[in-house]
Each structure stands twice: as structure tokens, then as C-alpha cells.
């Protein structure tokens, strides 16, 4: 019978979902992040060992917190004993009372959100925050994270351990941010999830264009965040953006792994369910008021996804959306996309004019995207030699193998057509 999945699979799934909640609860109680993480790892191993034979406990979350709590008690006891030996100071509080906090309360509060706030704390560098989030909230092993980022496991282990030290040294409190802090802290969490998604989607280095496990993980975390804060427009916008972008993944590469641009993709291969979910999220969120950059980018993605063909794309609407986005974010990439929309609505000459202005922005000068966009617009304008030259210049400047291959092929296609 194809009914319930096998117990082992269900346990794996459940443990991944519970591990950040359990870690959050233990860190909240004991403060010591590194020791809490070790204790939770041991509890997870105990679950994998006991549950398949004995069946799931009535309350798996409480079971895990209890086991991790016991490990922490041992740890605290050992630490206390060590300090006693070292300092020969006897605490006035008897050890039994010190350990009383270890008792498991019936609190069913989900600490995952506070854990996310801590892992994405602004004192951490983006790469540290990403690694720590994937480890502590995503429940990935260090080896899995290392593989996803194409670095040796020892390197990733060191990155995670340094991130924990930074948290410890800076005394980042594990607590619910105040109302004033909340918006900024949530912005940092959104940004980290967005970086994880992008890393998986565009693979900034290496031969593979997609590292699906990273985008899948970012999507899972964004869903989790949206479930925890369903009324936040930007969280919903971020999840919608990921869904609407990821929906095109299968169509984005050809059989040999080559990059296929949006206007040449086989739209029948787009994931309609993901598009439907993303559009529904946006539709529910947009009318609610303050619109942020993730919602606007998701809206652009939705316009593309809903066009039956590239020619039917509603470019005036995209132009309007990029206009709004430009007003709230000073990002030259947004301005570059705005220039593309201008070209699609008013013709390539108008787009090229915008590029001339953009080329003076030092943040974009010499960037391969500027050359690539110019090449595309020159091609549309019928300047074949100009387009070939800029495709080649962009190819020399990109650090993505897949993109370089796409750009030199594009130049070769124009040369071949010239005969």
C-alpha cells in the first residue's frame, strides 16, 4: 500500500523541522550557544537510534529538549566541577538549584525565529551568517554546507566555529528583539536567506549553473519564516520572489548545461504550481500597504511568469515596477534593469542612452553585466559588430563559466550569421 512513508524518512523530516526549535529552546535556557549545539546534536543522534525501534514519542519536541537538557546538565555539572577545582570557590547556590533551570517546562513556544535573528545578526559577516544559519536553523551538516559552497569541509567547519566565537565575544543576546530593532533584524534575516537562494540559483563560481540544494534550502527557510511571521509583507514578498524565480529553473539550462536566456526559454517547462503559489502570495500581500523591494522584485518576476510568450511580456508594467524600486533602493543593478525595461518599451536607442549615464557610476563601471546588456541592446538596434565586441568584452569579464560560455556563443552566433 502506498500510504504513509517509511518511518525512517518521517523521522528524518521531523528531526530537521524540530532541530532549530529544540536548539532555540536550549540556547534560550542555557545561553551557551556552542555547548547547546553539541547537546542538541547528541539528542538528535539519540532520536535516530531509539525512535525507529521504539516508535515516536508522544511529544517528540519535548523528548528532544529533555534529552538535550540532560546533556546540558552534565555539561554544566562538569563545568562547575572544573571551576571548583580551578578556583576553589564554593558557590553559595547549591548545584541542585543551579540545575533547576534544566527542568523541562511545558512551554511550546517556537524559538526558531529568535535563533534566526541570532544567526543573521549584523555583527556577523554575510558568509558567516549564511553558514551558521544553514547549520543551526537549516540543520545541514558541515560537510553538506561545504559541498554546496565548493570549499573543503575543514574550511567550512572553521568558518562556523569563528561565527560562534564572534557571537560569544560580542555578547549577542539570544532574545526577542525590541519593536524598534525588529524591522532591521528581520531585514538582515531576509537578506541572508536571499543570499543563500541566489548562491544556489546563479552559482557565483564553478561550472554548474544551479546548486539546487542551496536554493531548495533557502526556499524551505523562507517558508518557515513566512509561517512564523505570516503578516509581514516583505517576508511574503521574499518567499514569492524565490518561488517565481525558481519556477523557471528547469527551462533555464539546456541539455549540455548551457544557459538559456528568459526570452528563449521553453515556457511549458516552467513550474505552474510554484508560479500559482507565488502569485497568490503577492496578491494577498500587495494591497496591505507598505511595499518593499522584495515584493516589487517578486511582482516583476510574476509579470514575466504570467506572459504566455516573451513577446507578450507586459514591459510597461515592468518599467513602472522598476521605477518604484529605483525610488526606494539606491542599487545600480536596479537602474540597469530599469534601462532594459526602457529599451523594451521605448526602443533600444532609449535604453542605450540610459546605459551611457550608468557607465559613469563607479559601482558599475567595468562590470560585465553592463557590457552584456549593451551587447543585447546593440544587437536589437542592428549594430552587429558593436554587439559582437561587447558580448566578447562581457565574456572576458564575467567570473561565471556558464555565463561566459553563453556570451561567447552569442557573439559567435552573430558572426556566423554575418557569414
Amino acid at each position, binding site marked *: 500500500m502506498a500510504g504513509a512513508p517509511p518511518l525512517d524518512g518521517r523521522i528524518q523530516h521531523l528531526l530537521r523541522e524540530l532541530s532549530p526549535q529544540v536548539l532555540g529552546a536550549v540556547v534560550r535556557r542555557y545561553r551557551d550557544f556552542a555547548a547547546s549545539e553539541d547537546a542538541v546534536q547528541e539528542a538528535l543522534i539519540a532520536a535516530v537510534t531509539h525512535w525507529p525501534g521504539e516508535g515516536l514519542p508522544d511529544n517528540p519536541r519535548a523528548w528532544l529538549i529533555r534529552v538535550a537538557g540532560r546533556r546540558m546538565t552534565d555539561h554544566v555539572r562538569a563545568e562547575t566541577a572544573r571551576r571548583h577545582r580551578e578556583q576553589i570557590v564554593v558557590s553559595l547556590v547549591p548545584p541542585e538549584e543551579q540545575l533547576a533551570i534544566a527542568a523541562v517546562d511545558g512551554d511550546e513556544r517556537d524559538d526558531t525565529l529568535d535563533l534566526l535573528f541570532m544567526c543573521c545578526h549584523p555583527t556577523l559577516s554575510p558568509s558567516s551568517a549564511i553558514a551558521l544559519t544553514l547549520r543551526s536553523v537549516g540543520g545541514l551538516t558541515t560537510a553538506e554546507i561545504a559541498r554546496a559552497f565548493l570549499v573543503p569541509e575543514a574550511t567550512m567547519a572553521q568558518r562556523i566555529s569563528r561565527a560562534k566565537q564572534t557571537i560569544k565575544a560580542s555578547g549577542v543576546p539570544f532574545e526577542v528583539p525590541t519593536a524598534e530593532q525588529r524591522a532591521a533584524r528581520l531585514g538582515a534575516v531576509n537578506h541572508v536567506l536571499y543570499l543563500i537562494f541566489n548562491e544556489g540559483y546563479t552559482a557565483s563560481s564553478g*561550472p554548474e549553473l544551479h546548486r539546487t540544494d542551496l536554493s531548495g534550502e533557502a526556499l524551505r527557510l523562507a517558508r518557515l519564516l513566512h509561517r512564523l511571521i505570516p503578516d509581514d509583507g516583505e517576508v511574503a514578498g521574499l518567499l514569492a520572489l524565490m518561488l517565481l524565480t525558481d519556477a523557471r529553473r528547469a527551462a533555464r539550462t539546456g541539455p*549540455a*548545461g*548551457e544557459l538559456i536566456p528568459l526570452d528563449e526559454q521553453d515556457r511549458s517547462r516552467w513550474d505552474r504550481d510554484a508560479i500559482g503559489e507565488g502569485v497568490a502570495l503577492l496578491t494577498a500581500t500587495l494591497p496591505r500597504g507598505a511595499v518593499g523591494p522584495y515584493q516589487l522584485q517578486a511582482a516583476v518576476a510574476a509579470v514575466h511568469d504570467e506572459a504566455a510568450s516573451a513577446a507578450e511580456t507586459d514591459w510597461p508594467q515592468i518599467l513602472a515596477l522598476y521605477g518604484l524600486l529605483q525610488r526606494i533602493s539606491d542599487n545600480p543593478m536596479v537602474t540597469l534593469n530599469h534601462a532594459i525595461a526602457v529599451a523594451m518599451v521605448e526602443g533600444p536607442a532609449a535604453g542605450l542612452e540610459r546605459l551611457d549615464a550608468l557607465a559613469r557610476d563607479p559601482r558599475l563601471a*567595468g562590470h560585465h553585466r553592463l557590457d552584456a546588456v549593451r551587447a543585447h541592446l546593440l544587437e536589437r538596434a542592428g549594430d552587429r559588430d558593436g554587439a559582437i565586441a561587447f558580448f*566578447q568584452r562581457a*565574456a*572576458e*569579464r*564575467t*567570473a561565471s*563559466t556558464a555565463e561566459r*560560455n553563453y556570451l*561567447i*556563443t552569442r*557573439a*559567435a*552566433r552573430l*558572426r*556566423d550569421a554575418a557569414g
Partner: protein
Amino acid sequence: MKYMLMMNTPTGGPYQIAQWPQQDIKAHIAFMMSFARQLGESGELVGAEGLAGPDQAKVVRAGKDGTPITDGVFPESKEFLAGYWIVDVDSPERAYQIAAQASAAPGPGGAPLNLPIEVRQVMSGPPADSF
């Protein structure tokens, strides 16, 4: 034993892939991808990286107070490193064999490029004690 196989491409030499017809570019890319896959499957690939073009490369030296002094890479450079593979093989002969495969990557018209591949042994740890 580990070897590093370096693909040095002479400026203005045969490896001006961006100037080839589309079909030849595609064949070359397909060859390189299947070559990497084969090495991975045989369990001999330790690592491989392609390097971005020399266009934006810099040569760096420490200045008086240790601050970096950067210099452009000069366009008259005779050749540059395009990429490398590190393989873990049983014999130097096997490393040469792999290098020869890489060297024969198809160029214009599908003819083998016969690019020079520099093969260097990677230094290892100390040998086991012997008595």
C-alpha cells in the same frame, strides 16, 4: 600521488575560443564538461578550476608598510594560466595520459588543439618511517 595539470594559453595563440564559429565553441565546451565528469567518475579528480580572463588580473607586491601595490597584467604577456586540474593518480604515466586527453580538446573544425599542458607533481607530506 597528486599532479597539477596546468593549461597555459598563449596570447594570440590557437586558444582564442571567443573567435571560433558557434558549433566549434559548443563542441569544445561539451568536451571539457564530459572530461571533468569522466575524471570525477574515475575517482581521480581532486579539484579543478577555470580562471576568469586575464583582462582584470593584477600583480600584487607588498609596499614599504605592507600595503598592497597592484599592477596590471601586461598585455604583452606571452601566455597566461587558463585553468588547472589536480588529479590523484597511481603513476606519473597516468597523469601524462590525462594531460594528453585535455590537450586534444577539439578546436576550430573539430581538430584537436594539442595545447601544451604543464604537469607538475604536488608536494606531499613526509614519508612513512622506515627502519
